[in-house]
């Protein structure tokens, strides 16, 4: 009986510390979530403005000759994989890696500590990922695509649907798809549409990478908050069950002791 009580007490203590940990991590995630979604929306707005222009430019006949619009015969895919910096975010990282496994690719460029560790590359953190980093990656990717090293470039990131739901998805980046919007002929292009498109592609690719990183980070934080909330609830449930067991065992021990004392005094 005494051993049982001791065991229960140590389990309660361990679950209590887990509860504290999940609460603290949940609070940290809650405080980060607003800034993360703000940054995501800003990056999305910028990318939206640039992709409107790129859609318009790709719709013009001259731009069809751009090296960034050429479809290659082979299908060698360069895949940028964005995972989280840390674990304890439910199925966030596992979902990304599962989708990556199901996709055939030639090369992987990881972003996020978990992804970099998995693919054995130097660490690039998602939380502190800057636009300058995105731009230098974009330059490399665009050059490789134009040289024919890859035939397609895509990004595997996590779409932020709401605070409760996020889903991994693959977004194609290169080659650029012909836009449906026609070029506005009242606008003067300096020097011409094709030159503007070719100089803009790196900036566009960088902005797509940056926006995907910001969106994935917001998804990671939201997933962590949700995971910590449910872990906290489970820990609380377990605590109340264990406390009940502990009190019963303690009560049983006291009753037994009293019974033994009474029995001893009677004899």
């Amino acid at each position, binding site marked *: 009986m005494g051993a049982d009580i001791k065991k229960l007490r140590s389990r309660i203590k361990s679950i209590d510390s887990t509860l504290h940990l999940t609460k603290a991590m949940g609070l940290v995630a809650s405080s980060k979530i607003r800034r993360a979604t703000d940054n995501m929306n800003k*990056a999305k*707005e910028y990318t939206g403005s640039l992709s409107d222009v790129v859609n318009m430019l790709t719709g013009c006949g001259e731009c069809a000759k751009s090296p960034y619009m050429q479809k290659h015969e082979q299908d060698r895919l360069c895949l940028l994989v964005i995972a989280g910096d840390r674990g304890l975010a439910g199925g966030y990282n596992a979902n990304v890696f599962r989708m990556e496994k199901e996709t055939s690719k030639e090369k992987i460029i990881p972003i996020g500590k978990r992804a970099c560790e998995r693919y054995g590359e130097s660490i690039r953190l998602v939380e502190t990922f800057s636009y300058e980093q995105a731009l230098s990656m974009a330059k490399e990717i665009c050059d490789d695509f134009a040289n024919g090293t890859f035939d397609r470039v895509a990004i595997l990131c996590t779409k932020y649907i709401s605070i409760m739901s996020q889903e991994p998805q693959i977004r194609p980046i290169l080659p650029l798809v012909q836009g449906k919007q026609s070029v506005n002929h009242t606008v003067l292009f300096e*020097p011409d549409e094709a030159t503007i498109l070719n100089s803009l592609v790196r*900036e566009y690719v960088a902005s797509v990478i940056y926006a995907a990183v910001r969106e994935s980070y917001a998804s990671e934080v939201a997933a962590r908050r949700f995971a910590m909330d449910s872990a906290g609830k489970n820990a609380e449930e377990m605590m109340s069950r264990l406390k009940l067991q502990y009190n019963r065992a303690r009560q049983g021990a006291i009753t037994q002791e009293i019974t033994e004392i009474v029995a001893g005094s009677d004899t």
Partner: protein
Amino acid sequence: MKTFKLVISSPNGLIFDEDVVKIVLRGDGGDLAVMAGHVPFMTSVKPCQCKIEMVDESVKTAHVEGGLLTVAAEKTTLLSGSFKWDKA
């Protein structure tokens, strides 16, 4: 003095949104200035020092590594991920 609305946007949000007199920067075809009433126009921006003449005649300067300048009737937009104000 005639003015026009200038919006400068970056991936980290809006940098500038005010009425100005003139903006000078380097486009694909060389240095250019945009003033009120400019024809609708689009060019990619080359690395340069960008000068913005404000309504109070002061001049703000910044460094740009690249981007896109779009001039439309209602506003002029500079989209750049590398726009940095010079220290005063």
